[in-house]
């Protein structure tokens, strides 16, 4: 069995940043990702990102991904793609399907950066073809260059809903409306303004009542909701659409953390159950760290800083740098970047989708 010092699961912004930071200090990091392309969410993002200079704000998401990848290469990080991590045991052995072949790797430290999964919304007809996650629609247009449908309704006015709507409009798809059960647009105003000035209606206080169609979605019926999100009878309206995109939030991918017994807690604002981590991004299990969306849904800028924090903390605990005032200061710097990004709110400053 192959033995390494550090395995990072997930080659998104968190995982890449973690491995770069560790490699900077001499730790040879091995990054595993189940995708055939590295970068996690970043390669789907064709828009310019928020954040500050340090996290490459104003740069398009996929370009941030390319920059991180080049850095990782420069520092000698090993990235293995098409590597599904299917399990971890309590001796830090990872069970992997490496390009269709089962294998095992043992690591001294593991950083989990597994990202998140799209949340579904259940209503009568939600299993009809044509109901899909906004992320899936985004993968179709931006990666595969196929439009998901002709006439779309977007459910959710968070940043994911607004941004994916913008990408769909850029791809020439007709978006009939964005709807949200909330009384307020939940994403950033500037993203909403882009959609609104393109003439797309934003309908608040409505949810999906049902999807109709024989072999696929042909119509969506919406219904108004009150302040406590109860449906108000006789307020149905409907749209002829062939695609219903759900952008109703993401939930952290914690299956590996749960398997090895990391303690989790429920944080509704951060997307659901998340592993508890300390100021080093260390979970309740000594050798297991976690960073990025899987420790709470926030943003790429935050995922990168959390990754760096975990990478540096691992380099220290593996003995590659001594745990002195200087390394503590480096950790403190990253933490201060994080609290800047979160406006001192701790986790929960910014929420996507």
């Amino acid at each position, binding site marked *: 069995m192959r033995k390494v010092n550090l395995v990072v699961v997930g080659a998104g912004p968190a995982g890449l940043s973690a491995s770069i930071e560790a490699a900077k200090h001499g730790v040879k990091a091995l990054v595993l990702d*189940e995708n055939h392309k590295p970068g996690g969410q970043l390669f789907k993002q064709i828009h310019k990102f928020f954040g500050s200079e340090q996290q490459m704000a104003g740069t398009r998401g996929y370009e941030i991904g390319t920059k991180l990848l080049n850095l990782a290469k420069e520092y000698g990080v090993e990235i293995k793609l098409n590597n*599904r*991590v*299917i*399990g971890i045991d309590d001796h830090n052995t990872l*069970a992997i*399907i490496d390009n*269709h*072949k*089962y294998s095992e790797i043992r690591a001294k430290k593991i950083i989990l950066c597994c990202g998140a*999964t799209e*949340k*579904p*919304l*259940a*209503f*009568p*007809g*939600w*299993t009809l073809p044509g109901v899909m996650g906004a992320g899936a629609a985004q993968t179709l247009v931006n990666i595969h260059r196929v439009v998901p449908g002709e006439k779309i309704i977007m459910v959710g006015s968070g940043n994911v809903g607004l941004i994916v709507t913008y990408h769909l409009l850029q791809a020439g798809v007709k978006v009939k409306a964005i709807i949200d059960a909330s009384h307020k647009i939940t994403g950033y105003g500037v993203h909403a303004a882009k959609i609104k000035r393109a003439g797309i209606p934003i309908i608040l206080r409505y949810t999906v009542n049902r999807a109709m169609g024989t072999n696929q979605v042909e119509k969506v019926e919406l219904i108004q909701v009150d302040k406590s999100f109860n449906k108000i009878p006789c307020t149905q309206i409907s749209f002829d659409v062939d695609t219903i995109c759900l952008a109703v939030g993401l*939930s952290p*991918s*914690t*299956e*590996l953390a*749960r*398997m090895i017994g990391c303690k*989790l*807690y*429920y944080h509704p604002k951060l997307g*659901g*159950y998340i592993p508890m981590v300390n100021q080093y991004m260390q979970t309740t299990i000594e050798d297991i760290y976690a960073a990025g969306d899987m420790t709470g849904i926030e943003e790429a800028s935050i995922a990168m800083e959390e990754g760096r924090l975990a990478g540096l903390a691992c380099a220290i605990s593996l003995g590659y740098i001594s745990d002195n005032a200087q390394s503590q200061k480096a950790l403190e710097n990253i933490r201060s970047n994080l609290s800047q990004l979160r406006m001192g709110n701790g986790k929960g400053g910014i929420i996507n989708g």
Partner: protein
Amino acid sequence: MKEDYVVCRCEEITLQEIKSAIKQGAITLDEIKKYTRAGMGLCQGRICSTIIIEILKEHGYLPQYSAPPHSRIPVRPVKIWEYIGEDQDV
């Protein structure tokens, strides 16, 4: 007629089946999984657990007070030939 639709797509468990499991006393994700098989299929609950959490909430069982579901190997669908190392075309 009560409103019904599939909640767990992998195992084809419906809303009414989940609700009746809750009535029978299955009030955590794990209990509902063991009782109905919802969350036991290919995706291992990655999709339906969010919906089941919402249904539990409607019944007054808040996720804050219950443990997250257990997770077991394999957390991704794996084909048997990948596991045992045979070639695909065998």
